[in-house]
């Protein structure tokens, strides 16, 4: 089963590498991984989509927690959440198909962001399943190139809070 895991990490040199190294070292799958700033400048949020049996997913969460740079790890799977992904898709068109492609774009509420005499580039945003659907529809026209951002996700309503009370020891 697919899991979406949200991780707050110290925005430090190497934190991303550490997570990536841990995944490859432990043999865990990564479907997508995205990282960016949060409302707090020293903290970044990683959203990791991974897949495996429950037992493995439990290990993934524990291993993420074990990393010194991770502040908070939440498995969003099964929780009420918003998930979005952005895709840029460049499709070939012929005389007759340009309008069709643009209507696909409109149906999925995308944007046409580039066009030349052979190809047209669409920007589609939505839950990953929507992106999959667009890709399916566009495939027969011939997809020249595609870039997907990977999922970003937040719990609905109350957001993950960063522990502002820095823990001090010794």
């Amino acid at each position: 089963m697919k899991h979406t895991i949200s991780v707050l990490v110290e925005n430090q040199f190497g934190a991303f590498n550490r997570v990536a190294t841990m995944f490859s070292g432990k043999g865990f799958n990564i479907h997508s991984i995205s990282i960016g700033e949060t409302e707090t400048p020293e903290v970044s949020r990683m959203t990791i989509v991974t897949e495996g049996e429950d037992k493995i997913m439990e290990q993934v969460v524990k291993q993420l927690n074990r990393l010194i740079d991770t502040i908070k790890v939440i498995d969003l799977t099964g929780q009420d959440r918003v998930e979005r992904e952005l895709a840029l898709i460049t499709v070939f068109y012929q005389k007759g198909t340009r309008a069709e492609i643009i209507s696909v774009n409109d149906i999925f509420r995308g944007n046409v962001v580039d066009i030349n005499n052979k190809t047209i580039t669409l920007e589609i945003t939505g839950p990953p399943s929507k992106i999959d659907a667009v890709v399916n529809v566009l495939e027969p026209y011939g997809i020249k190139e595609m870039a997907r951002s990977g999922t970003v996700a937040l719990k609905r309503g109350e957001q993950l809070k960063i522990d502002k009370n820095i823990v001090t020891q010794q």
Partner: protein
Amino acid sequence: MRNPNQTLSGADIFFECLRQEKVEYIFGYPGGAVLKLYEKLYDVDFLKHILVRHEQGAAHMAEGYAKASGKIGVVLVTSGPGATNTVTGIADAYMDSVPIVVFTGQVATHLIGNDAFQEADIVGITRPITKHNFLVRDVKELAATIKKAFYIASTGRPGPVLVDLPKDVINSVCEFEYPEKVELRGYKPTFLGHQNQIKKAAEIIKKAKRPLLYVGGGVIMSNGERELKLFAKENNLPVTMTLQGLGAFPGNDPQSLGMLGMHGTYYANQAVNNCDVLVSLGARFDDRVTGKVDTFAINAYKIHVDIDPTCIDKNVVVDLPIVGDVKHVLAELAAELNEPLQLDEWWNQINKWKEICPLHYEKNDGKLRSEFIIEKISEKTKGEAVVVTDVGQHQMWTAQYYKFNNPRSHLTSGGLGTMGFGLPASIGAAFATKDRPVILISGDGGFQMNIQELATVVYYKLPVKIFVINNSFLGMVRQWQELFHDEKYSFTDLSASNPDFVKVAEAFGLKAFSTNSILNVDEILDEALAYNSGPVLVEFKVVKEDMVFPMVPAGKSISQMMTKRLDPKEMV
């Protein structure tokens, strides 16, 4: 003490921090990137720098020191090759949870990434084998980083931490203030076990008919040996230990079943198979312990106490996890259990197993065997020595035949199984141990992997007793070849290429003896053990083709244990 807020160079700050951390020894080797630190070291008097002969040796020495003392081992090496040479030692410390801090020199920050002379991305290289690592990019971060490094290495589940020090950071200056507190919001290592879980565990143990304590290195790391002893004794519980757990409970106590697992005792493994409640204390269900996992303690209710949540349910799914410091949990468990358990039937059964199949080896053919030598060493030192081993057959025989009385006395590379660990680790242990003999038991193969450290042991006049068990083979590999690889002894026979160990030792300046006779063993051991003005080496030329038994073949269930050689297919 210097005034706080005084302007200091990175190199001065480095030593001030080590002083504050009460570091007694640095195991190190100089080079270009750390010249400034060595310049300062020349005048430092509050700690001692131990010059090694290879940086791998430095890392293992730090491990030996840390394991024997419970303090943090410290390493200082140069960039590039100096740093990469420590990698095996760091990986070893990671696998066995040994608190060491490794300082590596690095090229100046503006050169990082340029393939500069003696540049290696040691932070990248060691990321998967350190508990944490740091590249210090600014001298202003140096003191806080060192503080964090020592804190992370020694708290929670201990482990190695590496701090990479670019040359310009060491040379630049800033105001110095050693932080009093560590600020790490992502790291909360101290756990007291969950109260309700502990109560529940106590209830389960109270009702057990066939309980067993399965004790790992975590008990020793948490200094929980007293609590363990009290708990086991008051409740009359049988105790089996992992390789790293040996010494946590006295080996000659009748309640000790010795080691479990691949080369564990028959009775320990039988007890595991038949127990109804298994209490794992600071152990991690390693595959060398469990054999085939789905048959391990199959009928037992499993309680797992460990400080590291990732250990729980990793290899074996347990019924009752308790995440916490094992010393505390043991004390609380003991407080909950106030009536001794009625375990006569269980003990009768265990004692029967002990009778049916005690540890045994051939004693009547007059040949010199490792088991005999180790048994003698155990008797003569009354189980009180600090015994360091290398990796292989001699390591397993030491675990079986040396009856450890004390924790922090059995120093061996378990998780990584690093040949070459022994000699340098014994040197580190000798710096930490003043009141007990330090003994190295090594094989002829592994001894040659860090043999250069003989120079170190001689230079510092450390009274380490080095026993090289020479079977002219890479014995443990030979054993597997005999049992599982059609007796094809591919590249394991060292008889044509081994050096004369006595001559080698003498060339380095050691006192050295050799014997191949069972008749000399007493006399030679007495002499070696009595010699304290420096190191001594004894080569024991033992039978070539001895085998470690009992043995559970890899991946087999521990009930499929071989207890003797004659017919490997005959399972007990």
